[in-house]
């Protein structure tokens, strides 16, 4: 593979790393928001009415339903975080390998240009 191709695929990896990192950060903020809601729910008494915002209207909701819903969401987000973490590891590994490859190609290129001058 040529040096240019290696560098461009390295850049591609860098870009995908960027998007995955952003996804990870988004998940983190979603998780903390949901945990905040869970904490709030845990302090409710049975006569606190819960509403859910659906479009522009507030709809009455059962407390148990709302709680299980939030629990499920937290579970889902945690699974997503695991998936994204695996992706992150995978991309970093690939980048590491590409870097080695690029360095090798670079030294080779340097040697070939140095031969005629010396």
């Amino acid at each position, binding site marked *: 593979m040529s040096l240019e191709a290696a560098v461009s695929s390295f850049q591609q990896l860098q870009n995908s790393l960027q998007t995955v990192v952003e996804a990870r950060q988004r998940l983190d903020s979603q998780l903390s928001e949901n945990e905040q809601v869970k904490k709030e729910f845990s302090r409710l008494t049975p006569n606190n009415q819960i509403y859910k915002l*659906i479009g522009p209207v507030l709809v009455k909701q059962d407390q148990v339903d709302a709680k299980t819903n*939030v629990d499920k969401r937290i579970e889902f987000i945690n699974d997503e975080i695991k998936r994204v973490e695996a992706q992150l590891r995978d991309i970093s590994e690939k980048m590491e390998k590409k870097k080695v490859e690029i360095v090798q190609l670079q030294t080779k290129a340097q040697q070939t240009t140095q031969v005629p001058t010396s």
Partner: protein
Amino acid sequence: MSNQGQQQVDVTTLDLNQLIEVKRQLEQELQHLTSSFGQLKGAQAKFKACIESVESVKPENEGKTTLIPLTSSLYVPGKLADLENVIVDVGTGYYVEKSTKDAIKMYKEKVEFVTKNLETLQETIVRKQDNLQTVNEISRVKAIQQREAALKAQA
């Protein structure tokens, strides 16, 4: 940022270009942190405003007319029907009906939570600023050294 401790590098061993890179990175982090700080400040102010608003929902105000905003420029007169309860946004699209007392308590807790976060953030920012200053200092020293070495080589 969690593995900060593991990547400790002695900045004095870096050369000028690396120092510039470190400086750039630090500046970026600092910018991100200050913008987060501003956002948190905004959230804090919003919660404080909520406390004030909830406090105005009290029995003394029963029967008085208020203006309800339908849009940002259209208001209709209205009366408060329920002075004991308010509906509070707890996040992710869920709203909970609470007594005004509980609502104020919740907002106070939120303000406290945000304030605590602001304090830790402030500490981090100060530390980063210190780091940046150190890096600046060292890169200046290195630049001078480099120039002197170049002069000596010429002479």
